């Protein structure tokens, strides 16, 4: 066992989609890992393969279009891809659970909220119906919803409240890993803050490790311990929050930061990254980012860069990646306290 057992380790995972217009290479030999009790931020534009990755972990990708080419997903040393459906079912919801993006549609409109949480509990704990309903009530209380609302239907809750219900459902069986796929994107800012606050509190209370998918760097700064920047199906930069925020080296990561308005600097022009996400069905050769990179050279177009560990735990996939002692970052970002 390595020094601290990795809760989850993804080794060169490759997932493609066979669609009418050709195969889409959504994830290309991705490597990632999450330690127990830690929160990993997975950042990238839409279409970078974030959702595909986490859905593959949960094994809920619809098989006809998606094909898992190769790679392993080790959860406490066991490869989830080899597990049978029956075994996966005992993991889903109990060991690993997931929250989806749009609270409006992630609750079954024809079942009461209490029933849906009760279902999660009954699936994994041997309790009778009444006890399960009671536990469901407790979960609602923990996420700040009065217990007597358990018999209401989803359409009787606001967006924020619904997301709380979803969180309650996900944490009902006290999972070790919680995957949140852009949990707050569909909510407006004030509600977003409340939900994030709740998730931080519960993370500590239940000591759950978490994978937070987002394209909002504000959330990453507030809640994540480690950050992985994904681009076109692979991780281009990985490190602690400080590594990525303060010592980002990959041009794409730096580009992400230049797009955010900075309250403290009076420079009012935002510098967007040129171009759009490449078409996943015909990805560029060499470094996939070279079509939009300002620092690109011929080598970038032909060869694929290997991953360089610029400092302990800080990896960058770029030819210009320099080990830590030399680099100087041009960008300074005030860390919100």
């Amino acid at each position, binding site marked *: 066992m390595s020094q601290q057992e990795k809760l989850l380790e993804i080794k060169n995972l490759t997932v493609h989609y066979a669609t009418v217009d050709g195969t889409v290479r959504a994830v290309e030999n991705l490597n990632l890992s999450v330690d127990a009790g830690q929160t990993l931020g997975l950042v990238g534009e839409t279409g970078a393969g974030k959702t595909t990755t986490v*859905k593959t972990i*949960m094994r*809920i990708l619809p098989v*006809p279009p998606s094909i898992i080419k190769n790679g392993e997903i080790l959860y406490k040393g066991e490869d989830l891809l080899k597990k049978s*459906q029956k075994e*996966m*079912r*005992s*993991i*889903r*919801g*109990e060991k690993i*659970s*997931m929250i*989806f*993006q*749009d609270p409006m*549609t*992630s*609750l*079954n*409109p*024809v*079942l009461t909220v209490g029933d849906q949480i009760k*279902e*999660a509990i009954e*699936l*994994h704990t041997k309790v009778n119906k009444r006890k399960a309903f009671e536990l469901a009530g407790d979960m609602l209380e923990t996420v700040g919803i009065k217990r007597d609302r358990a018999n209401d*239907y989803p*359409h*009787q809750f606001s967006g924020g409240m619904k997301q709380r219900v*979803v969180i309650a*459902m*996900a944490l009902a069986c006290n999972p070790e890993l919680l995957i949140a796929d852009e949990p707050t994107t569909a909510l407006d800012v004030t509600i977003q803050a409340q939900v994030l606050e709740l998730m931080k509190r519960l993370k500590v209370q239940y000591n759950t490790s978490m994978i937070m998918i987002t394209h909002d760097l504000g959330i990453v700064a507030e809640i994540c311990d480690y950050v992985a920047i994904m681009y076109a199906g692979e991780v281009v930069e990985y490190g602690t929050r400080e590594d990525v925020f303060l010592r980002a080296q990959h041009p794409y990561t730096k580009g992400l930061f230049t797009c955010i308005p900075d309250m403290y600097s009076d420079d009012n022009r935002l510098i967007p990254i040129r171009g759009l996400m490449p078409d996943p069905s015909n990805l560029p050769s060499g470094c996939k980012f070279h079509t939009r990179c300002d620092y690109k050279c011929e080598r970038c177009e032909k060869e694929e860069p290997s991953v360089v560990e610029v400092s302990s735990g800080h990896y960058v996939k770029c030819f210009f990646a320099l080990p830590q002692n030399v680099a100087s970052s041009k960008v300074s970002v005030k860390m919100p306290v």
Partner: protein
Amino acid sequence: MIKYILRRILMMIPVMLGVTIIVFTMMYITPGDPAEIILEDGATPEAVAELREEMGLDDPYLVRYFRFVSDLLHGDLGTCYAIGQPVFDRLVQTFPNTMKLAALAVLVSTTLGLLMGIISAAKQYSVFDNVAMALAMMGNAMPNFWQGLLLMLLFSLWLGWLPASGFSSFKHMILPAVTMGTSSAAIIARMTRSSMLEVIRADYISTARAKGQVEYRVILRHALKNALIPVVTIIGIQFGRQLGGAVLTESIFAIPGVGKMMVDAIKARNFPVVQGGVLMIALSLSIVNLLVDILYAYIDPRIKSQYK
């Protein structure tokens, strides 16, 4: 909810009134004289004139219509020209048979339709999907009187499993119900398939799966219940089709139902029976539609709250 049901029942009254007007006018303008049919061979001109007078067939349109409606309000549907039996008794004898048949036919078409719809949605683009849909549509495309005869040949004559005609036991109802049911199974199957496809892609299905729920329960408990909502309305409409389909099926399988009675009545210009029959059918259809809407609210809580 009760208020909504009352309002719907009140709304039925103008529709029923409209039905009486349409049916009465239709019968009024139809050529052919019931008196002559009753007299058959004894139809000498004077006898016909005398009978017409007796039956009040010579009165003007409005007089006859209001007599018909006033009788109706007193619960008297008039007497059947042919047999002289009150129409109400004839309906009491024949209507339950047609309703039983139509209900069984709807059951057949719903079970067939739902099964095929769910399976072909779950196994989309597979061989089964195309075969199921093709078969369902074949059932719909086949004229049901021809299908009835062929089924009778196969199951009653060659296999001897089921009685060919008549209506005394449950076994008598299987063949006619299947004949009528297959024609609307296609529509229900297609509707279920498309609404299932839509529902299967919804997030709450992934949530259910993410909870570790076993697949068939995800399909039945989560997907099907949501997919049923648009399908329920189709089933309501199918009931009307089945009543129509019953007309031919009843004559093939010699079933004493309203359908067959109506066809003979229209041909014999048996006005009271036609008027009574159509009213009863229209009433039952409206009631079925109301039941479907209530079922609709029961299945979809979002609509129930609107009705409060």
